[in-house]
């Protein structure tokens, strides 16, 4: 659905994108994570046909945003990281205006707008001035605006920024619902917890390049060298287990607290299973063996730390 190859963008002397490669598959919820200034918004502006690139190839729904911006705009709904509202328009009129400028036929506009208000749970606010809506409501109205021409692809730039916990939950539910409806969603955030649980794919962007991308589980699998393992043992076996594990090169940061033994495992599921089998064969009673999946935050830190170390 989206393909960026070796995309470059320069602002004066600063290279915002240094050969960015990104592939967003159709039907996915793709989380683009990265710190502030990583190039997320620049990449989104380029693929939304708002900003021209300095190099590389971009394809959105099969069209180049620079050569065929209108084709891209037919297929893409863009929600920037800010609210844009007109004075004196209520929620209904606001959506109706954007339906008109997106070319929705006049005869269909009313039905489209009412459906969208229902989808984002704002039917009861149809007559309310948009300036009087809460931040969460405005964000949902923005999402409805991005959907007004029924695009296949949604580009959401930091959609949960500044929202309270309840509004974030509502937004996540809404995104999940849109995914069920078959939309492809590219969503950026620097708050990693926002994307956890709703994304099927992710990409990590830092300093204008993508460090890693792919399906969530594949990404986790590729960067599981630092998974934490929590083990509960019989009291008398703790020291023996520590001796055994401490001798293994893939185990580090081991610590003991009562019956619990925690350590960091550099290895995959097979390595984990092998270690567990070794303990059992040594006669150690293992009550619990829990391998914690790496969170986005850990993955992100791991990726960016590797970069720092390389420098």
């Amino acid at each position, binding site marked *: 659905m989206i393909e960026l190859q070796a995309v470059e963008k320069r602002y004066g002397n600063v290279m915002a994108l240094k050969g960015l490669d990104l592939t967003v598959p159709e039907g996915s919820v793709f989380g683009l994570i990265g710190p502030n200034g990583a190039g997320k918004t620049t990449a989104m502006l380029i693929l939304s046909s708002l900003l*021209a690139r300095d190099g590389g190839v971009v394809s959105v729904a099969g069209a180049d945003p620079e050569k065929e911006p209108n084709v891209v705009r037919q297929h893409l709904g863009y929600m920037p990281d800010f609210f844009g509202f007109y004075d004196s328009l209520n929620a209904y*009129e606001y959506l109706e205006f954007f339906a008109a*400028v997106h070319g929705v036929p006049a005869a269909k506009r009313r039905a489209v707008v009412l459906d969208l208000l229902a989808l984002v749970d704002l039917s009861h606010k149809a007559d309310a001035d948009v300036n009087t809506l809460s931040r969460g409501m405005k964000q949902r109205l923005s999402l409805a605006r991005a959907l007004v021409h029924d695009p296949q692809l949604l580009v959401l730039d930091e959609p949960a920024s500044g929202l309270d916990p309840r509004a974030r939950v509502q937004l996540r539910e809404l995104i999940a619902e849109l995914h069920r409806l078959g939309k492809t969603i590219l969503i950026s955030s620097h708050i990693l917890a926002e994307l956890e649980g709703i994304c099927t794919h992710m990409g990590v962007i830092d300093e204008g390049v993508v460090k890693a991308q792919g399906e969530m589980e594949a990404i986790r699998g590729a960067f599981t060298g630092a998974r934490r393992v929590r083990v509960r043992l019989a009291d008398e076996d703790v020291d023996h287990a520590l001796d055994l594990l401490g001798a293994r090169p893939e185990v580090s940061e081991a610590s003991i607290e009562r019956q619990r033994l925690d350590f960091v495992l550099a290895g995959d599921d097979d390595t984990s299973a092998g270690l567990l089998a070794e303990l059992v064969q040594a006669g150690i009673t293992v009550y619990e063996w829990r391998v914690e999946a790496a969170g986005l935050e850990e993955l992100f830190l791991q990726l960016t730390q590797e970069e720092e170390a390389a420098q």
Partner: protein
Amino acid sequence: MNLSLNPVLAREVRERFRGRRAPIFVTLWVLGVGLIGYLVYIIAQYTARDAFGLGQAVAGGYMGRFIYEGMLFLLMTGVVMIVPGLTSLSIVGERERQTFHLLQVTQLSPLQIVLGKLWSSMSYFVLLLVAVAPVVAVPLLFGGVRITDLLAGLGMVILTALMLGSVGIWASSRARSSRGAVASAYTWSFVLAFITLAAMAGELLIFSDGLAFPPNGREIVSILPNPYVGMVSAVVDPLGSDGLSGTPFDIVEVLLLQRQGFEAFGFGMDLGPDMARALPLRRPPVWMFTVGIYVLIIFVALVGATRRVTAPASRIRPLRRANGS
């Protein structure tokens, strides 16, 4: 392109006329024009009585002409003062409200966005014009003014509004703050309306011996884009004669007469239409240049604004914040 269906125009009109500000402004405008019109009427009455002591019929025609010319000057000044304010916030306002990108990613073409902004401002201006139409039409009751005179004068007023509106849209598309846009639009407006007159004095000083006019037979370039001179030129004949002396147009009529190489008799004197028609012209009338220049400015301004609104852009210019940070 069906302009009547331009959604930007529809929304702007809805937004502009919703709330109390628009009716209050229109009311004040009508009252202001009416009051000034009345003052012009009083002045015309005194001038007619003191200068000629003519019979009612002639004095009535003179007064009609006097009021008509006074009202045209007033309307043109209204255009110079109001139109830049109507248009200069249009595009920079979208950027400040953070709706600019939202418009750019729609199916609207950049030209539709620009024209929607221009037509909405012009529709407001036309409303102001229609609101004072009864006051402007008063001279027809007195006589001395042909309907063609009225149409020619109003035509130049509307063309000037369209030109200043286009310049305002262009200034708005370039500006990084609403304050900058307003300042830029008014600067262009005042340059055309007033600085060109000062430039005329400069031309005289530089190119003439003493205060000879026109300077050594040269064209007076600086007055060609001036809206007041263009308007008078469009209404009176090429030799600057409205057939009456002591009317508001006289100051420009003298200029137009001298531009054609004739000595002025002094302010308050007029060749009269018969003599004016009999004399050969040295140059085409000023209004032809003014119209040509304005059409060119409108074209350049709208093309410039459209280019600024076109996406993808090579860069996205940040707005300048009001606190200067």
